[in-house]
């Protein structure tokens, strides 16, 4: 599943470069932040800043690139218990 992305500035005081992620119905499902080099644990990675609906929860993983982030979010959206 290919999810639409839209660049955004995130006001988290640390990592401003971000990406809105939408589902196939153009509803916002996640906000990703690109971790700056100042981050001491995962610099350069994409971080799930916030998830909505099925992307919401205690997990806030980091991803090596946007493709991996998209894959994880798509899996969460497709999950049916």
């Amino acid at each position, binding site marked *: 599943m290919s999810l639409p992305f839209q660049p955004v500035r995130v006001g988290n005081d640390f990592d401003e470069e971000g990406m809105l992620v939408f589902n196939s119905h153009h509803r916002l499902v996640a906000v990703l932040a690109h971790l700056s080099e100042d981050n001491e644990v995962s610099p350069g990675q994409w971080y799930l800043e916030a998830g909505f609906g099925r992307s919401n929860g205690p997990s*806030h993983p980091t991803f090596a690139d946007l493709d991996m982030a998209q894959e994880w979010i798509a899996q969460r959206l497709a999950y049916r218990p």
Partner: protein
Amino acid sequence: MHASFLSQDNPMIRKIESVFTLTDDERQALENLPMQLAVIKDDQDIVREGDRPSRSCLILSGFTATYKISGDGKRQIMNFSIAGDIPDLQSLHLKVLDCSIGTLSTCRVGFITHEALRDLCERCPRITAAFWRETLIEAAIFREWLLNVGRREAYNRVAHLFCELLVRLRAVGLAKDDACDLPITQGELADAFGISTVHVNRVLQQMRADGLIVTKGTRLTIPDWDRLKEVGEFTPGYLHLEQPEEAA
């Protein structure tokens, strides 16, 4: 290797003596308590959930974490233990362990058989009461952690934990002034607070920038104790230390 400890070297004796003065017989019984000494490297389990231990583990130096793992493999740390603690003391009465205990740093530990502990408790009722008291305080720490993790913001949570650890380390002589050695990684802090390591890192960076903490390697220094206490909403009553001035 079996060994007995003189009072000044045994953090368990120091801890009990912070609550009441031992009689000569009680001190003798504690010093003669047979203990199997071991050095365990960091990131090793000492006991695991489901174990049926026949001994308990006194921490002589280093840090351990008490934790459980969720069905999808996520770890929740519910307490850190330090010198003088016996984090699996409950296995003396509860046969199957309901949590795991692992080392965070290299630990020196003393394993004491349940048989020896039972014998000690039968002979020394005040020491039995001291052990009981310890497990009650452990429960009080769990309650405080539940409030911390469930209801405080991440920034305040971290401040609260640093306050608690500094006070507990001071009580066993392992923190001088407002500084201590804290060999806990950001990943381990994340598992204790139920937040991501990225979030922990941002909080630590913010706390450093705000002048609440200074970190150098594993060394933690608190430049302004009163401010950190205020941020962490920390009141040491739940630790039930007998010398409140240590916690002030």
